[in-house]
């Protein structure tokens, strides 16, 4: 099975390497929307996401000759826009991050939870396809502290491997796993009011 560039993209890639201006425009129009969606997941600010997409395409233009075609063109661009988005995050003036501890489970000295959990109702497909539900979930993800949100987005949404996320964020794989677990726990707490039924 060929996991590399698809025939259609292969033609486009050949034209890109030849410096064909119309090929660059085709690339931007074909993949721009997808890249914007990825950038928006990492960058809460829409303008920053647009900037990251522009940076990503310019980076792609410069490096297209070194793209070996062993992966899909979309995969290659996906990685470039993630790098551009993370670079954008690093250049922004940072406020001290909100501690995540308030969103994590609290335990008593004997190891039991301090508060009984809220049982959730079952989430069906129709729940998770409803636009307002998805927007609410997205807003809760956006509200997580950045260092945890980035790991959640890169692992659970962008489906990158732990090692890859570790390299991108310059942290250890162990730190990725810990932050992912805590991000999920924090998000769960944020979603309690939406999906939880009080335990009777």
């Amino acid at each position, binding site marked *: 099975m060929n996991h590399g560039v698809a025939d259609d993209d292969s033609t486009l890639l050949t034209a890109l390497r030849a410096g064909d201006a119309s090929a660059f425009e085709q690339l931007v129009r074909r993949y721009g*929307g997808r890249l914007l969606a990825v950038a928006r997941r990492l960058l809460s600010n829409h303008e920053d996401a647009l900037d990251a997409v522009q940076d990503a395409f310019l980076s792609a233009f410069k490096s297209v000759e070194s793209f070996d075609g062993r992966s899909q063109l979309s995969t290659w661009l996906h990685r470039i826009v993630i790098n551009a988005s993370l670079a954008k995050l690093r250049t922004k003036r940072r406020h001290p991050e909100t501690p995540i501890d308030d969103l994590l489970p609290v335990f008593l000295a004997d190891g039991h939870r301090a508060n009984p959990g809220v049982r959730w109702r079952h*989430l069906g497909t129709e729940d998770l396809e409803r636009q307002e539900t998805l927007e609410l979930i997205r807003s809760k993800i956006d509200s997580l502290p950045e260092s945890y949100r980035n790991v959640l987005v890169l692992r659970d949404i962008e489906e990158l491997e732990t090692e890859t996320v570790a390299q991108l964020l310059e942290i250890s794989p162990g730190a990725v796993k810990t932050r992912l677990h805590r991000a999920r726990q924090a998000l769960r707490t944020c979603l309690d009011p939406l999906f939880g039924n009080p335990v009777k």
Partner: protein
Amino acid sequence: MTCRDALEILADYLDGRLTLAQQVAFRLHLGLCPDCRNYLDSYRQTVQATIAVRGDQAECESLPEDLVQAILAARQRGSNTE
């Protein structure tokens, strides 16, 4: 195993990374602790909710036309200086 212990290894349990001994201890705890059973269920659904976002947000959304033109113009400027 306490609730603290169980929740700490929740992600590893879902990923199938626990040793057999850990799995047994974890499942024993779940059998005795409805609170942790509820937590596991809601944790799983949280992951599903996160994944659901992946399929949304207008994968078919287009870039604003002015951005498309700005990108092409920037690329052209870069080509002219080479």
